[in-house]
């Protein structure tokens, strides 16, 4: 029975990690036109408790993508330098949308596992009622 309770915690940690990932994706998309914005990357890592791996996952520290920012030509922009260019952001919308899709797919898979474990637990308890 404790295995099934552990399952609920594992799936819940997966869902939290995927929604954190989705949050960073939407931050990137919202700031796609902000001058000088570097897109945020987050990678997952296994949670460690008392030196042992619990099996749960968490979103690791946020890193900034160091690829070069796009140079946009617009002499009328307040930030334009002598040549008329200014730094945009390094967000590629196609990559962000694909990342969001994958985050959603993983989130749904975790949710399905959570639901199945919950149903298995309740059918065990149902056995007592008969």
């Amino acid at each position: 029975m404790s295995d099934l309770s552990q399952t609920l915690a594992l799936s819940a940690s997966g869902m939290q990690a995927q929604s954190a990932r989705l949050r960073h994706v939407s931050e990137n998309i919202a700031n796609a036109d902000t001058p000088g914005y570097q897109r945020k990357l987050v990678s997952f890592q296994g949670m460690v408790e008392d030196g042992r791996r619990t099996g749960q996952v968490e979103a690791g520290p946020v890193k900034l993508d160091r690829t070069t920012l796009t140079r946009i030509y617009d002499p009328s922009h307040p930030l334009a330098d002598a040549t008329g260019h200014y730094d945009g952001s390094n967000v590629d919308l196609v990559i962000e949308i694909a990342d969001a899709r994958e985050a959603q797919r993983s989130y749904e898979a975790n949710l399905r596992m959570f639901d199945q474990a919950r149903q298995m637990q309740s059918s065990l308890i149902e056995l007592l009622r008969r």
Partner: protein
Amino acid sequence: MFDRLEIFQKAQAMAFHAGARQSAIARNIANADTPGYRPADVKPFAEAWRDVNNDFAPRQTRASHFLAGGTGTMVAEVVAAPTEGASAPNGNGVSLESEMVKSAEVRHQHDMALAIYGSALGILRAGLGRSR
């Protein structure tokens, strides 16, 4: 004869094994994007049962005979699954599709174990003369 009904022990062990396998599958899916993660699985139920209980032990017909065999307990051993498909560039080896298929099998195994337990309980109750 009634102190050790094997059908109940087996059904209970099967449900326990299904719960342990569900836990391993949930762990794999939660870590589907973790770099360098290898998926884990549990040994199949038939193998695990045979490891703990010697099914070929002679049956005990009198309580005074010494029975050398398992006690009907179940141990679900988690092993790292061999890498069957290609792993992702970040070293992750989890395939969401095969995990989903495994979880459907687990559901079926758990439901069957509980159905067996329930019907055996019903037979006992009928023997006692109670209708439900």
